[in-house]
């Protein structure tokens, strides 16, 4: 009992948020799901790491990480061998009626391959575990699709989210709250005196808009025919007002949306305003203990419905039948490490399992992200405990905005006295050799300009490739998800979830609302 089945309906490779939502959804629909991940933790690219894993990922060499993986395997082998030997000795002693049996002392374990984090971040696992550092800087829109899925699947019963303290946009070096109601527009320093009337009209239109009620539409604006550039003009909004609406409310990171139909940007602005209206302060919510909670909780949902999970289990090979469709997957058994083949007809995988395979995935761009540990709150944000700050491209002479997200110990993501800030942008000069330079305006905002860094402060910088699948997967039943994009929220992730579901099942995803509450006595 307890070993892997011979066959699963779906094998999911990777435990990122996209993959875990899908295995949760498929599991709750009664499918047999096996989910494997090469990492020792849940979440893949969307994980939250403790301080030790963070240090290992960003401060250890490739070689040290390899040695450490080997060391873990060695220790596991030693443990298994010791256990087996002990069991034999114990059985023999029992057989001989010898009650002086005592287990032998355990053998010496090889030493850790790389250094521990500095002591001001903690001295042992328990203190490193107080850090939950999210690798991708995203928030949930309070009225967005992921929030709805969390609610419908019942995952909200075992996850806690807090409202993010503020949503700011930077103009001339000064952050201000993004106005989303008529009253706020009147007071906001972001809206010039001349523009206040027009901005109020625009926000009124947004607040009232109902697709099915023509009286809420604007007669001279056709959302499918007019571009957003034209829409701004119709509302009399000037270039700065439309810039912060497009970047800080519709949340576009560049200006390419201006010449596309107005429908999508208007829908995104409506989402922003509705999300803002739910909990005040900002349109965003964020889980206590970090984003890694999301894949972990969805994996739990899937497991509750019988889904099987195996970490530390890399995908070795996908097997195909004569027609070129998936027939199985090969991987080392999670415990015995023996090569194992499992039958399945469908594989869902994240793109990091196909790095270098140009038939499977293609890169669509690069992001540069810096995860910063601060020992002070961020200036100019009313000392809120959490915030989203957008520095529009126009303010820095760039083509893409710089995003900053700030979190504090209120979210249980770091010990008291520390703040976590992520600075990210689309890399505009990948060949420049100086990716962190593109984040400089963000660092300045955090008080880390010109390379300044306090004694207890740290910057973890990474350049990440953004991938998308080359094919939709219907030819061979290998369905690949997209990388987590530059956006500040998860709306494109849930689009990907729905899209993959439809490709896998041939029908739209309809999540049944899970009504039952945790049982009460």
């Amino acid at each position, binding site marked *: 009992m307890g070993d892997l089945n011979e066959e699963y309906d779906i094998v999911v490779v990777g435990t990122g948020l996209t993959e875990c939502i899908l295995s949760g959804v498929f599991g709750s629909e009664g499918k047999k799901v096996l989910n494997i991940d090469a990492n020792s933790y849940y979440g893949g690219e969307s994980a939250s790491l403790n301080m030790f894993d963070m240090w290992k990922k960003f401060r250890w060499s490739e070689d040290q990480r390899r040695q450490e993986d080997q060391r873990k395997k060695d220790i596991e082998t030693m443990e298994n061998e010791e*256990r087996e030997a002990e069991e034999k000795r114990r059985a023999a002693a029992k057989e001989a009626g010898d009650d002086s049996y005592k287990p032998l002392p355990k053998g010496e374990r090889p030493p850790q391959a790389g250094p521990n984090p500095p002591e001001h971040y903690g001295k042992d696992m328990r203190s490193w575990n107080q850090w939950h550092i999210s690798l991708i800087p995203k928030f949930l829109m309070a009225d967005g699709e992921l929030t709805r899925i969390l609610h419908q699947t019942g995952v909200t019963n075992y996850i806690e*989210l807090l409202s993010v303290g503020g949503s700011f946009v930077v103009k001339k070096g000064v952050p201000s709250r993004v106005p989303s109601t008529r009253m706020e527009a009147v007071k906001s320093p972001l809206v010039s005196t001349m523009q206040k009337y027009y901005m109020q009209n625009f926000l009124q239109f947004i607040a009232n808009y109902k697709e099915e009620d023509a009286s809420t539409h604007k007669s001279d604006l056709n959302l499918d025919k007019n571009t957003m550039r034209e829409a701004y003009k119709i509302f009399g909004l000037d270039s700065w007002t439309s810039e912060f609406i497009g970047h800080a409310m519709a949340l576009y990171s560049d200006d390419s949306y201006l010449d596309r139909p107005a429908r999508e940007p208007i829908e995104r602005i409506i989402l922003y305003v509705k999300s803002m209206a739910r909990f005040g302060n900002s349109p965003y919510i964020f889980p206590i203990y970090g984003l890694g909670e999301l894949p972990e909780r969805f994996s739990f949902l899937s*497991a509750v419905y019988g889904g099987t999970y195996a970490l530390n289990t890399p995908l070795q090979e996908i097997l195909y039948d004569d027609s070129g469709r998936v027939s199985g997957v090969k991987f080392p058994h999670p415990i015995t490490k023996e090569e194992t083949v499992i039958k399945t007809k469908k594989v869902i995988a994240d793109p990091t399992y196909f790095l270098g395979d140009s038939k499977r995935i293609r890169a669509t761009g690069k992001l540069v992200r810096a995860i910063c540990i601060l020992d002070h709150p961020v200036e100019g944000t009313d000392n809120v405990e959490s915030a989203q700050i957008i520095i529009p491209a126009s303010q820095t002479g760039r083509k893409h905005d710089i995003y900053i997200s700030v979190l504090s110990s209120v979210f249980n993501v770091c010990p008291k006295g520390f703040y976590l800030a992520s600075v990210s942008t689309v890399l505009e000069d990948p060949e420049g050799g100086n990716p962190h330079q593109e984040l400089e305006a963000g660092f300045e905002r955090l008080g880390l300009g010109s390379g300044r860094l306090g004694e207890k402060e740290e910057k973890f910088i990474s350049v990440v490739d953004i991938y998308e699948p080359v094919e939709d997967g219907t030819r061979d039943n290998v369905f690949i998800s997209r990388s987590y994009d530059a956006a500040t929220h998860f709306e494109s992730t849930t689009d990907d979830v729905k899209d993959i579901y439809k490709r896998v099942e041939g029908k739209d995803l309809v999540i049944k609302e899970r009504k039952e509450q945790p*049982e009460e006595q």
Partner: protein
Amino acid sequence: MSHPRSSTSQRFAQFKLVLLGESAVGKSSLVLRFVKDQFDDYRESTIGAAFLTQTIALDESTTVKFEIWDTAGQERYKSLAPMYYRNANCAVVVYDITQAASLDKAKAWVKELQRQANENIVIALAGNKLDLATAQPSKRAVETAEAEAYAREAGLLFFETSAKTAENVQQLFTAIARKLPLDQQGPRGLRQGAGGRGVDLKGGAAAQQQGCNC
């Protein structure tokens, strides 16, 4: 979900309890016995409920409510998410007294809990399937004295239990309840979706309270 805090002398505390141990040692069966007083011989693995709750009245004025998290089988390939025992106030580490190796696994879990979980976590060691050893003493593979000595050394509560006959099941959970620090119960004990300090995704109004990070 309201908390009965009616009369002034009433004490009510809620704690998160997790179960750990090798698969098939009877973790879910222990919970089922404790919460519903049922036993199912052919129970395979945990499907359906994420967690169960059960209330114990310690005395006339003290009520302890356990929020019991089962592993849903995620422990099987060493794939338990950290969220599982994060903030657990108490843990029951289960082994099968007819399988010597399951005690080794239990010891590994205890070590992990002591290294990684809450500092004040109350851990109980439960040697389950006592009914099998009672019916057929030759089936016993772990002597009571051996496990007891280990539990004492590691500072654990210890019981040999039978989910099948209910022997010592209530006693196990009551002993844990008695050992928990009832007066120091902070928000970590109170962890139930929107009932804590999180936002309420069902309603629209701001349901958020000032966060206290303790």
